[in-house]
């Protein structure tokens, strides 16, 4: 019995001893592998993150550059447009007489913020009325306004001005569109056309 008991004890001790001898290297191996893997993983994350950030940054900078170029191009176009407009207005004679009786003075100077003067006679039925007023630029619009003291009160109006120069036939057409009718004979939406010959 005693021999058997000692045999079992020795066998158990062998297992415990083997476990103790293996546990140390096994745990160390697990720790080293885990540490090494995470270390490499951290380095790779930082590397790929910088690539991602750099890519995002470059595409952002490209977009910014494209936007800047577009702005510059737009600005250049606006500048050209303004130069063209300045040239267009500068070519207008100081005094112009339309084929249907309007006298227009200093229209070329409206681009500088000045007011151009106009006068014409308007016939409604048997009656002829005097109209005088000014044209000026307000914001992005060009507007006209009849002069209260110099226009017959029945036809007083104000509104929008449109103009077109035809280089081919050398004519300049001015449209006065009534958007505010102060007199009882002028109607909202009235369009008065005046054609000038620039030749």
């Amino acid at each position, binding site marked *: 019995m005693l021999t058997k008991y000692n045999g079992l004890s020795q066998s158990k001790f062998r297992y415990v001893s083997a476990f103790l001898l293996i546990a140390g290297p096994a745990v160390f191996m697990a720790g080293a592998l885990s540490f090494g893997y995470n270390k490499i993983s951290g380095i790779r994350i930082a590397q790929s993150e910088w690539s991602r950030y750099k890519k995002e*940054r470059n595409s952002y900078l490209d977009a910014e550059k494209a936007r800047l170029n577009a702005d510059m191009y737009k600005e250049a176009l606006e500048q050209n447009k303004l130069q063209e407009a300045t040239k267009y207005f500068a070519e207008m004679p100081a005094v112009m007489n339309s084929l249907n009786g309007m006298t227009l003075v200093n229209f070329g100077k409206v681009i500088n913020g000045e007011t151009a003067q106009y006068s014409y006679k308007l016939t409604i039925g048997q009656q002829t009325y005097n109209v005088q007023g000014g044209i000026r630029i307000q914001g992005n619009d060009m507007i006209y306004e009849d002069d209260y003291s110099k226009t017959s009160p029945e036809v007083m109006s104000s509104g929008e001005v449109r103009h077109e120069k035809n280089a081919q036939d050398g004519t300049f057409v001015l449209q006065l569109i009534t958007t505010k009718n102060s007199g009882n004979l002028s109607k909202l939406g009235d369009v008065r056309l005046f054609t000038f010959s620039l030749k």
Partner: protein
Amino acid sequence: MNIQPHDIKRLISSYKYYIFSLLLFIGGVKLLSLSGAAKIPECSNPNVLEKLKYVISSNLSGEKFSGNKVTSIFDISEIDAATSSARSCRAGVTIEGSELGNVNYMISISAPGSKEIVNIDTSLD
């Protein structure tokens, strides 16, 4: 009972493999405890420092991805022991030729979707 030096020597000699195994076990446990923090990149990782330059430059100019304001980073050190989620660092920064002084920053990792991203937080200052 008196323990003589040769007794200790004999004891060590008898159990040297067990002692070696125990040392390995302790080392292994230590490595396992450090492995969580190992995933957070080092303070001096060149990729982290490169991003840090841009993050600080952007903070200074208020523009996204603004660069070239921070010209160099020096004296990089770790402030506290890293945890499994973040590492706090300190570095000197030169901005357009003049020394700004120390900037504290925190490196952490977040994983939006399947991609892990290194976050650098300079708001520790």
